[in-house]
């Protein structure tokens, strides 16, 4: 990797870390970057792309100092100890759908309380609809995949906080 790019990358990493950004993707003609920090809280990054671009432009122009930018503070959600959350994984290969049919209400929403055996979603395989049931009782914390997305065996679909 060229010296320029390497320096740029170091500054980028510092910038991301100091702003608590967990994941970052960028593609340019000369460079493709994907950064993911281990153990980071799954906080939605609300960094203004324009401000970030300005920072990178400044960095590549040889500007060593980090331009002071106002970035809406990334709401780092209180780190939930991983052990208490349960992931519901797909038992089959297929296509994930959150609702029983297009346009219908999703089976579950974030915040819903679910019981063991309650249908959370559908995974469609070979034109057959398979209802996926929850294997724990608790609160739906996160839907990890999006409707229409292909999923493989063992892929996490939902995060549930068990009761």
């Amino acid at each position: 990797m060229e010296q320029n790019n390497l320096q740029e990358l170091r500054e980028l990493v510092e910038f991301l870390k100091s702003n608590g950004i967990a994941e970052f993707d960028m593609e340019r003609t000369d460079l493709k970057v994907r950064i993911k920090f281990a153990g980071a809280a799954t906080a939605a990054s609300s960094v203004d792309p324009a401000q970030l671009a300005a920072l990178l432009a400044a960095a590549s122009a040889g500007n060593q100092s980090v331009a002071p930018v106002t970035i809406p503070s990334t709401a780092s959600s209180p780190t939930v100890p991983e052990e208490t959350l349960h992931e519901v994984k797909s038992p089959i290969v297929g296509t994930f759908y959150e609702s029983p049919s297009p346009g219908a209400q999703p089976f579950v929403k974030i915040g819903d309380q679910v019981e063991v055996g309650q249908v959370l979603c559908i995974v469609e395989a070979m034109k057959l609809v398979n209802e996926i049931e929850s294997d724990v009782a608790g609160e739906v914390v996160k839907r990890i995949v999006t409707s229409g997305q292909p999923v493989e065996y063992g892929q996490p679909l939902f995060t549930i906080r068990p009761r």
Partner: protein
Amino acid sequence: MFRKVLIANRGEIALRVISACREMGIRTVAIYSEADGHSLHVKFADEAICIGPPRSADSYLNVPAVISAAEITDVDAIHPGYGLLSENANFAEVCRASNIKFIGPPPEVTRLMGEKSTARQTMKKARVPILPGSDGIIPSEAEALDWARNVGYPVILKAAAGGGGRGMRICRSPEELPGLFQQASSEAAGAFGNGDLYMEKFIERPRHIEFQVLADEHGDVLSLGERECSIQRRHQKLIEEAPSLMITPKVRAELGQTIQRCLRDVGYWGAGTIEFLMDEDGKIYFIEMNTRIQVEHCVTEMVTGIDLVKAQIRIAAGERLSNIINKPIVINGHAIECRINAEHPEKFTPSAGKITAFNLPGGNGVRVDTAQYAEGVVPPYYDSLIAKLICHGADREESMNRMQRALSQFVVQGIHTSIPLHQRIFADPEFRAGQFDTKFMERFFEKQAKPTAPVTEEGHFSSDPIRASGTAHG
């Protein structure tokens, strides 16, 4: 030509197919069980889908999971490799119904040629010499006794629905037949879900000779010559070579013609192998057909220069054989393959675990097909084949010397392998002289157990290699 192909297999053959696709500009999808997450076939495919837990039945043999993976990745075709679903006509049918091209023969032909009793009947009609055998299933011990009395002992009971030595019993007298019939039937039911048996005349010291074929979807069939696979342990091949010392150019041409005619009539397409046994007098008898690419396809590739996997893919894409092979088939030199298994070289116990050192031999005329690597893990759930070492030379002598050199440079640490066993075989005078039959390994182990056995012991040092004269002698 296909845009994207899913490989419904694992290990070295999955990597072999992925490599062929890559060379042809075809995108690849690997499927894997949770035990194969770090496999080479997964690493080197363009896309990979986890389809189930480690057990084959729940993953690689799980038809809905495989088809579903093919659908979500939007592939044009599926290559089934060997073993697993490759000869499963139901799977081929599901592919067809799902509008995915199955790289292999049509399900009807797979059923016809894949089931040994119907294949025998088909070959018999085409006047391919077949081993005297029952015309179909033998339903009872009484009928078994009748049949054996007519044909003469020894006879062999075999499972109609499977192979690999399971559901098989050799019977040398009427007294033992009823008991062996029961044993074979229940073993077959356990292994293949079908306890049906058929019977054949049994040859005590046969040589296993098989012919490789390619056929296109337009009715053209070509024989690519033979392989000899007599070095077997418990009906599992250990060493294969091409050409066979027992097949003259005349026999190769004649048998090739007969096979071509027969498969044309049957409507076969794809790659396939016809297996024969040669008796002590040089007579050749059809035993079964494998409607897929085989483990040992590499030796044929080395002597003919034809890429069989690419040919399979091109055939499935509708190309004509005359485009794929536009020169006469010439057998060049000699090639031998050693199957390197993850097992103890003397006890044959499976050796799963982490490979800590892995040095592959190379150089002129040496080919290694493997999906293992240093720090790779051999999982306990699947067959023990971890690599194929193939050596080519101008003649058999050179290919054997090359193999000895290559084996000595093939270093695997962390697990046991059959490399030391192969080294001992290649030092054996009978093997080197080409004096063997399918009982070779039994005699070899006996010799190893008593190194000072007298030369005159029965069955050990046979006379000159049998000439394939085609005449029947008593």
